[in-house]
């Protein structure tokens, strides 16, 4: 992606579903190449819809998505997508699940075994390579899914509330692991969450969406915290508190509106 400033750009993206429900309206924002950007907003506001548009799984009703400055047609081949739902294939072992993308792309058996063993170790799953997904905890399943996406080395990573279903401790461990993987990788991350704490801790910029229907961008908040970051130390700093407070005051009104 040399010479490209924005890895992803959304230009006035509006999505109206078949039933006439407009989920997001006139969404415009860009994600600089190599940066970590989070999208937060109340549940049901359209965060997954935005991510699906960037993945090419959902075409905007109006507006367009640019990937490396080119309009996106069909699936986004530069992106890996870590879905909100559990997407491991129950009939494949951890190792085969991790290697799925390689297998699909025609990587040979030997190379697949080598890389997937390496990745299993990198996400702390050595010793579980022959287990089936139903034998794993929620955190281990997410780590498998993370390795499955990351092993194919996409330039762009789309993550949809990847840690939403995990308990607080596991989530913090996953934050550290994610930052460790991402740091120095040069990859662009678009990270969706409803957890502001998580968004601030991980990101260079937080984009706040309003409550639906016709959710729009309420504000964009740069997070100037130093990198590399340790998630726990980061949360202790005073700058963190200030940034968190300023975003939360905008978000709180929307969350309340969502409940009203």
């Amino acid at each position, binding site marked *: 992606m040399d010479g490209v400033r924005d890895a992803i750009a959304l230009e006035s993206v509006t999505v109206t579903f078949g039933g006439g429900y407009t989920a997001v309206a006139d969404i415009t924002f860009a994600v600089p190449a190599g940066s970590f950007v989070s999208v937060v907003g109340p549940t049901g506001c359209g965060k997954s819809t935005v991510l699906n548009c960037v*993945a090419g*799984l959902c075409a905007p009703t109006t507006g367009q998505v640019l990937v490396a400055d080119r309009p996106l047609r069909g*699936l986004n*081949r530069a*992106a*890996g*997508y870590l*879905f909100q*739902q*559990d*997407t491991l*294939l*129950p*009939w*494949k*072992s951890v190792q085969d699940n991790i290697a*799925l*993308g390689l*297998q*699909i*792309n025609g990587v040979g058996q030997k190379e697949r075994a080598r890389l997937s063993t390496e990745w299993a170790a990198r996400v702390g799953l050595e010793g579980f390579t022959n287990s*089936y997904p*139903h034998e794993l905890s929620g955190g281990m399943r997410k780590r498998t899914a993370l390795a*499955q*996406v990351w092993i*194919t080395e996409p330039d762009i990573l789309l993550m949809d509330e990847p840690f939403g279903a995990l308990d607080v401790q596991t989530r913090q461990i996953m934050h550290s692991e994610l930052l460790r993987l991402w740091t120095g990788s040069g990859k662009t991350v678009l990270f969706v969450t409803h957890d502001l704490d998580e968004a601030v801790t991980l990101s260079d910029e937080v984009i706040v969406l309003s409550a639906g229907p016709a959710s729009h961008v309420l504000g964009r908040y740069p997070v100037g915290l130093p990198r590399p970051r340790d998630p726990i130390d980061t949360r202790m700093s005073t700058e963190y508190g200030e940034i968190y407070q300023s975003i939360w005051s905008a978000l709180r009104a929307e969350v309340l509106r969502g409940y009203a």
Partner: protein
Amino acid sequence: MRRLLIPLVQIGLVLAVLANWEFGGYDEFFFSKPSSVLGRIEQWLADGTMWADLGVTLTEAGLALLIGTAAGLVVGLALGRVKFLGAVFSPFIKALNALPRVVLAPLFLLWFGLGVWSKVAFGVTLVFFVVFLNTYQGVRQVRRALVDNARMLGATETQLVRHVMLPSALSWIFASLHLSVGFALVGAVVGEYLGAAAGMGYLISQAQGTLDTTGVFAGIAVLTVVVLLVDFGVGLVERELLRWKPEEQ
């Protein structure tokens, strides 16, 4: 204690029914006797006539199972994956499935003759629908996220079928396979019964023709054992292929 009691009671029941049948003083012309039936099977085994007939029946059933399953799989995958085809053809298939298949047997006898193929054709009409309906259902119930994930990883339509659709439909297909095996044998035996020169159904119809109740019962007993054995084999393959499934409580 319970785990031991249940099989004991079951064995006791079987023995009681057999003993009652043997010594209950029923008219032997209509009901025969367990000892006579067993004797007949021994005789068939000894003179080797049964093996030829059993071989014919199993060949017919095997071919019906193979062709019916393959056709059911292919059509089920096609109609399940291609929405247009599914919308157009599924009402026709449902209508055909509602047809009592036995009425087709005379037609198949006319078309394919008294040999193996009329029975195979009849068995196929039974097996096909079971496999088709289960595959169709299995493919359509695959979770959307699994498909999207595989597509994002670069899967082509063929790879989707291979890595996602087929394995996902496999548990349905196996559930249906137990049924299909039974249907394939029913197809073969009923077809033979209606018109054939060999096979277990032919054997039974011959026995009936000579008012030989013992022969009819012996044929039924042999078929029952064969079905149980084949079903056991299917169960073994199923256990091996569905190892990934969590144990059900």
